[in-house]
């Protein structure tokens, strides 16, 4: 019972927080929750299967673009629905054609995907609509965005926990450990990977759609910013991509660190960021949580 009550109580507290913080505090919370959502959704597919995807911003940006195109045509809930459907359809097409790729080929393909989507939209806008840059004039408050994003984060983590206990979760873990073994034990590789990839992509797309009203003006170079993909990966890896709350534990401190750096070292922030990345990869390749577990195990052994 407490396993369910404790997270719920935490969620209620988080939902009530905007009443007690400044606008900047709220802005920070939106940013942190957004990255918790992105990192958790990324880990939903990549954490289990160990397929490192750099396509985060392809879906995140698509979500924002759908809102920019439709925000004056459709009511907001419908816009979100359409965004989710488009993200899902895109993931389906991409997944079917690429999940056979393994290792570095998959990484490169996903990175290229963001660029492809960006160039396609640019081409379309230049040659068909004759304009680049769209406006989002939606009357959604920062609090509204925060609550939506918080709900999405909760759903993402909840979904991950639920999948973990289903046959799908088991299948995904086997795929991550060894694809050959997975295939031989009767797991439908393509279907398993595809389901996880589509679910993860739909959440990433929704995250972009929810946060986009904060930007007002949208153009391909703004929404398809590759830094988002890199940050997501490093956050999830820092916390531990194959743990339930690992991505969230990585996202919040890293997000706050970057915010602090950009305020205090505006000129040299990218150097600090690079060093931090190297540090994470070298010192904690399996994530902080795994590091803590190792430490604990060592202590137990020492005690015994």
């Amino acid at each position, binding site marked *: 019972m407490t396993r369910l009550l404790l997270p719920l109580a935490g969620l209620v507290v988080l939902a009530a927080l905007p009443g007690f913080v400044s606008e900047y505090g709220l*802005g920070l919370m939106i*940013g942190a929750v957004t990255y918790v959502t992105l990192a958790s959704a990324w880990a939903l597919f990549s954490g289990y299967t160990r397929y490192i995807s750099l396509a985060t911003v392809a879906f995140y940006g698509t979500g924002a673009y759908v809102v920019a195109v439709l925000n004056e045509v459709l009511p907001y809930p419908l816009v979100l629905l359409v965004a989710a459907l488009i993200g899902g359809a895109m993931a389906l097409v991409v997944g079917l054609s690429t999940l056979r790729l393994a290792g570095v080929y998959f990484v490169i393909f996903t990175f290229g995907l963001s660029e492809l989507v960006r160039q396609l939209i*640019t081409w379309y806008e230049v040659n068909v609509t004759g304009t680049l840059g769209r406006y989002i004039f939606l009357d959604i408050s920062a609090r509204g965005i925060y609550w939506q994003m918080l709900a999405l984060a909760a759903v993402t983590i909840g979904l991950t926990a639920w999948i973990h206990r289903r046959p799908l979760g088991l299948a995904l873990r086997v795929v991550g450990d060894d694809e050959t073994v997975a295939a031989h034990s009767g797991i439908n590789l393509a279907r398993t990977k595809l389901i996880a990839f589509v679910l993860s992509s739909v959440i990433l797309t929704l995250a972009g759609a929810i946060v986009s009203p904060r930007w007002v*003006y949208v153009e391909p170079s703004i929404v398809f910013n590759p*830094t988002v993909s890199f940050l997501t990966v490093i956050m999830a890896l820092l916390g531990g991509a194959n743990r339930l709350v690992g991505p969230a534990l990585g996202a919040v401190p890293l997000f706050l660190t970057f915010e602090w750096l950009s*305020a*205090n070292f*505006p000129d040299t*922030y*990218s150097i600090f960021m690079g060093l931090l990345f190297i540090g994470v990869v070298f010192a904690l390749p399996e994530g902080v949580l795994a590091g803590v577990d190792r430490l604990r195990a060592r202590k137990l052994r020492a005690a015994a």
Partner: protein
Amino acid sequence: MTRMTRRGALRILALTASSGLALAAGTATAQEDPVTIGYAVARTGANATGAGITTIPNYELWVRDVNEAGGLTMPDGSQRMIEVIEYDDRSSNEDLVRAIERLASQDEVDLILPPWGTGSNLAAAPLFARFGYPQLAATSVTDMAPQFADRWDRSFWMLGGGHDYASGLVDVLKGALDAGTINNQVAVVSVADGFGIDLIKAARPAFEEAGFELVYDETYPLGTSDFAAILSEAQSSGADSFVAFSYPPGSFGMTKTAQSMGYNPAVFYVGVGGAFPVYPDIANGQPDGVMAVGGVNADSPEIQDYFERHTEFVGQPPDSWASAITYASLEMLEQAIERVGLDKEALSEELASGTFDTIIGEVQLENNQLRDLWWVGQWQDGAFRAVGPADKDGAVAPVIPKPDW
């Protein structure tokens, strides 16, 4: 200490202030509390080049100028020093939005200066409006400025729209066509990005209306670095006028390519970057005759003085387009504060209705927009001079045909 540059000193001021250490700025001259002014601009990322040329140097120069003169003058005649709080928006609108929320609600600064670029200013506009700060968008080119001014009544749009620059250029070329110095054929290329698209969209009908024929009309993707094919097609099109609605990398690349292939059209026009101080070097010391977007009244003593101060403080002259506008917007702010103080509402009203004496001359906004702008300039005798609109005070006659490279 004497070896320390003013720029360096200013950086340290900004750093100390932003790290939360209380700093009694200018204790020697002013007893009053300092006026805190915040801004979030791109120090890193895709926008850092533009912000580093046009926005940041002018903000720093203005703060230096004001503080050296004893600070901002208040309506009661007292003076208060400026204290700066600066954040890096990392060229990301999400970070920009958060930085402005921080300046407004956490640092509670007296005034906020706008970020660099059209997209950034639009992302910032709802926040300036919500917190009530006036927004002097000096680096935002948009045809929708009238609608934006209606939507956010404390926003001020100071750099015109794509339509203005395109028709301004057509007017200049029309003069040469009527005088018989060029034929009616134009070769035009445009970059597939916001600025290029806005301009080509407005230019096509404007050229046709003026009796020109677009014999070559091509769009190239952002990031293109090889312009040989484009230029040789433009050259063989028979057009006397070559027009490129380009960004700095394209403007520079096309200039170098045209020089190396000996392409000498009567009119050679490039977009953003043509008015940059680095352009004469790019053009191998032969910029004369090249036209570009922007321009300044190079003979005005105020502009000459501004160029000198900028060169001395930053180490290079300002660009001849948005830099002077940016500095003038800060002078407007300074004079408005002297008249009505720091109350944001009164300040916005004064900016909208007042008349100001700036380096670009006397400025009065119309419906929250600066309309009295230069649309076309040309390099003449090593300086980038405004040529259009031709009837504006300070315009020089364009040199057509352009001297060969």
